[in-house]
Structure formats: C-alpha cells, structure tokens
C-alpha cells in the first residue's frame, strides 16, 4: 500500500518527463530519419559529415569547446587549491560566492560582455582615455571563448573544489613525514584524489560549450557559426526541421559519447556530486 502511494507521487514527474523530454526526443529522432515527405532517409544524418558547412561548424565547435575547457581547467585548479588552503571556517560562504554570479541570467551577463567589448564600448573607452591601443575581439572566436569561459567557469571550479575538500590534511602530512616533496605530493596525491572532480568539471564545461549557440550569436556577430547556430538557423530561419533534427541527433551522439568516455575514466562516480 505504502509503495503504491509512493509511486503515485512520482506521477507528475513521470508526466513531465514523458511530455517534455521523451516525446520531444522521439520527435527529433523521427524528423532526423525522415525526409520532408515523411519517408525514411539517412540523408540528414549523413549531411552532418558530407556538407562542408556542417563539417566546418562541428570542427569549430569542438575546437572552441576544447579551448574553453582547457582555459577553465587552468584557471579553476589553482583557485580551488588556494581556496582549500585558506581553511575558511565557513566553507558554504565560498561556494556561495562562486554561485552568486549564476543567480543572474546568463544571457544578461553575455549581453553585458557585448557592451564591454564592443568597438566603442567600456573597455575601449577606458583604454583610449589611458592612451593605450584598442582591443577588437568582439565578433571573433576569441570573444566567444571569453564568454564561454566566463559563463562556465563555476561548473569547473565547484567539482574540483569539492574533491579537494575531501582530501584530509593528515594524508598530506603523512606524505611529508615519508619524505615527499611538494611536487610529488601534488602529482601523486592531490591530482589523483581530485581526478573525479576534474573529470566532472570537464564534462560540465565541455558539453554546454559544445552545444552553445546563444553566446556565439551575441558575441560572434554572425562571424562564428557553431553547430548549435546551424541547428537554430535550420529551425528558425529556414524551416528545415529535418535537417535541424538530423544535426541535433548527431550532436546528441557526440555529447553521449564524450560523457561515456569520461564516465569510463571516472569509474568511482564521485565527481558528479556537486549538486
């Protein structure tokens, strides 16, 4: 009886999943494998690799996604170490500080970057008044990477920081007692123990940057066409639902594959526990 009632409570969520996740996914798969006349075709799946536009966009998305992930990792790892080394009493406050920017809508923050970076924007005005040269990175891939790093950095920082707080200081002390130098401690103890955090950080940065389209739209000014933008164009401008679904399907496979690869490395599965 109790069990039945418990299952009943899951009902609304089940309806939600079926109606807004499962059905749309099935529709994408349906459109991906059919032509505009409704007959079965692999044309739109193949188009992801045969069309030069799509190949170039996928390559650019992978490239920018990797660069963004790498920069996030390089920025976040030392910060996490420093924060952990500060031995703050209220660790929740630190997490709060890093969550704070995420309380504001990410599109608004990207629009703010656009104003900062634009040709006659805030940064260039300040530089000009100091007699320095201008930066003209708006509407280039560099601006898009900057926006992605800015948006996704907390997703890298938090899992790494979480993993680090789990390293007990006596382990480090024991290593020191046994004669390990700080380099050895870093590579033999800290890095392996934070591996799960690094991996979940990489997944949580790489996947959204691979699929992002809004950031490249705003900061790329039409010069940076990521695979997400091609899909958006297919649906919103060209009414090419089948082509858009075909690309979405291929992109989903990319995402699942990358998560599977990282999941295999991160066998203990601790890393994703940041929420």
């Amino acid at each position: 009886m109790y069990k039945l009632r418990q299952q009943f409570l899951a009902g609304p969520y089940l309806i939600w999943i079926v109606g807004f996740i499962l059905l749309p996914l099935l529709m994408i798969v349906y459109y991906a494998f059919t032509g505009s006349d409704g007959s079965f075709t692999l044309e739109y799946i193949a188009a992801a690799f045969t069309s030069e536009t799509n190949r170039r966009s996928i390559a650019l998305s992978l490239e920018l996604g990797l660069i963004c992930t790498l920069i996030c990792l390089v920025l976040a790892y030392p910060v996490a170490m420093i924060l952990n080394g500060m031995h703050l009493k209220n660790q929740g406050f630190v997490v709060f500080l890093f969550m704070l920017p995420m309380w504001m809508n990410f599109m608004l923050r990207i629009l703010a970057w656009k104003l900062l970076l634009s040709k006659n924007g805030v940064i260039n005005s300040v530089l000009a008044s100091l007699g320095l040269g201008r930066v003209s990175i708006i509407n280039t891939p560099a601006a898009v990477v900057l926006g992605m790093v800015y948006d996704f950095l907390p997703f890298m920082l938090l899992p790494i920081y979480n993993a680090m707080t789990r390293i007990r200081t006596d382990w480090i002390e024991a290593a020191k007692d046994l004669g390990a130098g700080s380099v050895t401690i870093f590579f033999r103890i800290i890095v392996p123990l934070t591996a799960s955090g690094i991996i979940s950080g990489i997944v949580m940065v790489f996947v959204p940057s691979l699929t992002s389209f809004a950031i490249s739209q705003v900061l790329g000014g039409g010069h940076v066409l990521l695979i997400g933008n091609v899909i958006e164009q297919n649906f919103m401008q060209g009414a090419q639902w089948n082509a858009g679904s075909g690309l979405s399907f291929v992109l989903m496979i990319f995402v699942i594959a990358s998560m599977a690869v990282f999941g295999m490395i991160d066998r203990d599965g601790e890393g994703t526990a940041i929420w």
Partner: protein
Amino acid sequence: MIKKSFKCIAATAFVLVSAAGCGSAPDSGKNPENTITVLNYGKYFDEEALEQFEEETGITVRYEEYESPEEMYTKYKAGSIDYDVICSSEYMVQKLIEEGEVLESDFVHMENYKNLDESILNLCASYDSDHVYSLPYFYGTLGLLYNTEEVDAATVSSWDCLWNLPVKNEIIMENSVRDTFTPALVSLGYSINETDEERLKEAVEILTQQKKDDLVYAYYVDETSDAMIGEEAVIALCYSGEAALAMEENGKLAYAIPDEGSNLWIDSWFVPKTCQNREAAMEFLNFTCRNDIAEKNFEYVLYSSPVRSVSENMPEEYRNNPAINPGSEVVKNCEIYTALSDEVTAVYSRLWQELLSY
C-alpha cells in the same frame, strides 16, 4: 516489467487526455453583435483613433497585439479567438491567402479607398492581383543607414559601396537570409525573388568575398540601430523604420535607398475566415483609410503610409527623410518579397549557412 510499461502508457494517456481537454474548452471567442476583434502589431495604432472609432460608430473594438508575424500565425491558427480583422506583413498575408484563410472583400468600393496611393496598390498586386484580399496600412523599405561624417551620400547611392568600401570592419549586414541576399541580387541585376540556383550562387560569392575582405563588422538584426547609434560601424543594411528611430537618437546618421532599387515591405489588413462581424470589420477598415485617421496613425507610428494625404501634409523634415517618406520614384524601383517554395527556401538557407560558416 509489464507493470512498468503500463504505467508509462497510463501517464502518456493522461497527458493526451488533459491536452485534449484544453482544446475543447468552451468557445469564449464568440462576438456579440456590435463588437470586432482586431489583431495588430504592438504599438501600431493610435489609441485615440481607436476611441474615436468606437464613439463614431458605436462598435466596440477588442484590440489585441502581437510581436512577430510567426506569433500572429500561431495565435490565429490556435483558433481560440475569432479575429475579425488582422494586420500583418505581406509575406504572411500571402501565405494565409494561399492557405485559403482570407475572405474576399469589396475594398475597392469602400468610401475611402480612393485615398490610397496607386503605386503602392500596384505593388500589392504581386500577391493580391484583384485587391480583394488585402488593404495596405503602412509600408517601408530596406536601405542603408550611414554615418554622414564618414560616408557621403554619393557612396550610398549604389549597393556597390557594400562590396568596395575602403575601410575594413565598418559594415553591418542583416542576420536574416533574404535581407542580406537582396543587395547582392540587386547588384547583379537579378530579382530579389530570384529562384535560379546558379544566380543565387553568384550572389553568395559576392557576399562571401565581402566577408573575406573583412568588410563586415557583424550580421545583426535587432542590434543594428543600437550599434549605429553607438557609431560602431559606418554603414548598416536595415529597414527604414529602424533607421528612422536611430536617426532620432544620433544626428549624424542618415538613410538612403540605393538607386538600383531595393525591397519594399507592406503591412496590410485582411479579413480572416474567422470573421464574425463583416459589416463592422469593413467599417473599421474604411475608417483606417480616412485621411485624418491615417495622419493620426502616421504621427503615432512614423512609417510611410499609403494614404496620399499623409505625405502631402507631413512636416518638411519628415518629407525630406527617405526613411519616412521614400518618394514615388524610389517606390517604383522597389520590389516586394514573394513567398518562396520549400525547395527554394532550402537552397537559400543552405547558401546562407555556407556564407556564415566562412
């Protein structure tokens, strides 16, 4: 296992049933005798003029607004409200005419029909040859907004300035397929409704070269006027309405329609199949064509009006502003977008993505 899948099916069925329940809600859109429901773009009709109409005729107007033609289409197709009169862009009106959603009306014999400009009516004929489906309300052009301190009027008198401007990174193009194809097609001497793939490829080559030469600062839509006000670029491809707004904010900006011609858009009224009160609907449309009302609406919206007295009576500064009053010579040179077939649309969007991916 069987139990589990049964639960899934039950849940799905529940969703479907509740969705169907929404669809068959009691019909609340029925109009009483002397009411009409009007659907129009946001901020596109002077409220005072609406009140005047209600006072003069005793007809109550239920006025609804929308943002984009696609939104209007969804609202109309949802069918929960029976609209009597709708105003929208010409390509959407064409689409609805082709779908058989528009009723034939006797606009030509309306009292105030004679107030309308012949040249605009002739352009409407490209999609409504007998003038029985649509009645023009406002129109405008696609042209060049430019900074008069950096570029002179002679430069922007031809679309060629977009392909050979001496300074780099100073042009803003439209981030929409057809509007960016238009200058290239016109430059080549083709129609803006070109359907031949080889010719479209030629147009894309011009646009790709423009991008390779680093002439394009960005492809924008809504951001264009802000960027031009902020002087981020010296020339922008944009619509006259947007240009007029930008020119009010920054005195250095001016608008020009190149001599080769351009696209002209027309927002028109039409009476959809859902109309419940045709007599009042016609009375409303006749009212919008009245000289004093058209002038009132013009002052509110500041777009070009097909009612002749508007351009005759507007202040000098408006008349000399091509963003507000393109003039009949320019209008003759312009073309209207016609709806493209699905195959041609696919060609356009494929070439467009090729351009963007460079």
